[in-house]
């Protein structure tokens, strides 16, 4: 380690909802906290979430995601959290006294020593392979959402949305709000994946939702000019005679998210495989601590969920990291139990049950790993 290397008690990689909440709790307990984010502004995906959030009223539900983002940023600022932007983290090295985090900034290599490290790197959109899938006009739904809600650019006028999870439903609604026409939302499964109320919004606006349908190809020379879709049978095979062509100029793909786990692999964390959470997940315990002592994970990196649970997991990691530094106040145990109660409540019902079971399995892996 170089002499005079930058140091912090808690280094957080990723300034989205989980990272910001982790920073607020750790800094609130008195820790010196640095957030490193590769984007040019913090907030992760929060600032493009212009819709009102679901969840519990006590925890900002009913408020728009972008407003929640602004509040979290104000809080981190007032607590003196340092946020380093435009800085991709590319290396983690175990070192006496913590973990050295290497990152690039302004074309230079930089490093910081963190006594505790919280990985809140989020998730990335899954791709879907189909003929014509590389044509301009085919994009992730999250990409389209960034274009309309952050950059105020309409990616197309006649859109086919692929995937009926909440991302597909919400982005379809926001494309309608931005002035596009959404010709259809198609879903390969025989039912809608996301919340019915989101689906109802786009139905009221006149957008059909076709379950049991998939895209077979995007057609066009220099860009998407039309899109061929087909009905599927119960074995996901194309049904003869159901193919048709929609005159679309844009295909948005919303077929799930995968946790961005590279740094957890690099840190040497043990992993488990839980398909319901998005694949390989770093094992963590009730404190969000991975199998590497002092390295925590929170938010979508531990399984794709929603901002509401990401914020709670971030808080847990922040509280636990502060506690491990010997900074925590007396109420630590109660605070952690309250957060677990809130998270478990968010993971009930027909949509939450599977995630609850998957998360329980993940904590079980941690207990096994600890033995």
């Amino acid at each position, binding site marked *: 380690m170089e002499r005079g290397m930058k140091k912090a008690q808690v280094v957080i990689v990723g300034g989205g909802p989980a990272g910001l909440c982790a920073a607020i709790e750790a800094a609130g307990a008195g820790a010196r906290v640095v957030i490193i984010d590769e984007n040019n502004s913090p907030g992760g995906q929060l600032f493009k979430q212009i*819709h*009102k*959030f*679901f*969840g*519990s*009223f006590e925890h900002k*539900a*009913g*408020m*728009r995601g972008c*407003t929640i983002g602004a509040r979290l940023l104000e809080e981190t600022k007032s607590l003196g959290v340092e946020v380093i932007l435009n800085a991709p983290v590319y290396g983690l090295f175990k070192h006496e006294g913590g973990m050295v985090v290497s990152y690039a900034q302004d074309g230079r290599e930089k490093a910081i020593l963190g006594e505790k490290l919280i990985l809140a790197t989020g998730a990335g959109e899954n791709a879907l392979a189909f003929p014509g899938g590389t044509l301009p006009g085919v994009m992730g739904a999250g990409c389209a959402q960034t274009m309309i809600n952050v950059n105020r650019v309409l990616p197309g006028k006649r859109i086919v949305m692929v995937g009926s999870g909440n991302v597909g439903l919400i982005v379809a609604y926001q494309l*309608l*709000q931005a002035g596009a*026409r959404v*010709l*259809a939302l198609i879903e390969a499964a*025989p*039912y*809608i994946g996301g*919340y*019915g*109320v*989101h*689906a*109802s*919004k*786009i*139905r*009221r*606006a*006149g*957008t*059909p*939702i*076709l*379950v*049991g349908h998939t895209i077979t190809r995007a057609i066009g020379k220099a860009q998407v000019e039309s899109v061929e879709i087909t009905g599927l049978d119960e074995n996901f095979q194309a049904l003869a005679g159901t193919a*048709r062509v*929609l*005159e679309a100029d844009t295909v948005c793909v919303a077929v799930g998210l995968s946790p961005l786990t590279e740094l957890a692999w690099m840190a040497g964390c043990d992993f488990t495989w839980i398909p319901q959470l998005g694949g390989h997940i770093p094992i963590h315990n009730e404190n969000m601590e991975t199998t590497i002592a002092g390295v925590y994970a929170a938010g979508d990196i531990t399984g794709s969920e929603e901002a*509401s649970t990401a914020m709670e997991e971030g808080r847990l990691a922040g509280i636990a990291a502060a506690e491990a530094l010997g900074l925590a106040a007396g109420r630590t145990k109660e605070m952690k139990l309250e957060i677990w109660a809130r998270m478990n*409540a*968010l*993971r*009930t*019902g*027909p*949509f*939450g049950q599977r995630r609850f079971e998957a998360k329980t399995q993940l904590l079980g892996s941690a207990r096994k790993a600890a033995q």
Partner: protein
Amino acid sequence: MSVPETAKDGIKFTGIASREELAACPGITTGERFEKGPVAVIECVQEIPCNPCEHACSSGAIVVGQPITRLPVLDGAKCIGCGACLAFCPGLAIFLVHKNYTDTSSLVEFPYEYLPLPAEGSLVPCGGRDGDFIAEGKVVKVKQTRQNDGTALIVVEIPKEYFMDIRTICRKETYHGQG
């Protein structure tokens, strides 16, 4: 261009609550209550983790309780028809219905997050849960308050027979001629 719908009924398949789902929905009050004045209609039929409606109601007419995934229950006797809950529902699933506005017309109020907003007094095509045209309605009021945080509430006067059917201004109509 028309895209045919799939056959199976219900919100999980079509994105629209079926007649049966609405009939069983605890957020929708009884027939007699509709005769007595404006009342909230909470078309929330899936157990999702959400409760802002409960806190938006100062009359204690909406109860979600614990766990947070329970469906909201509307007490028609306590609901004063103020409509404060409408803009708080992230699902835009609450409507205010005044069945007996006149002998022949009802008022339906709904959240509307599109621009441009219609002008008060104008006639607009009104549609159902599938966005299809049902009847023409008159825009009685366009409410935009700070508290509603960007979600406009629109009150339309519509033929009484459609008080449980009309839920939006038809957006499909705006597509005509743009194809």
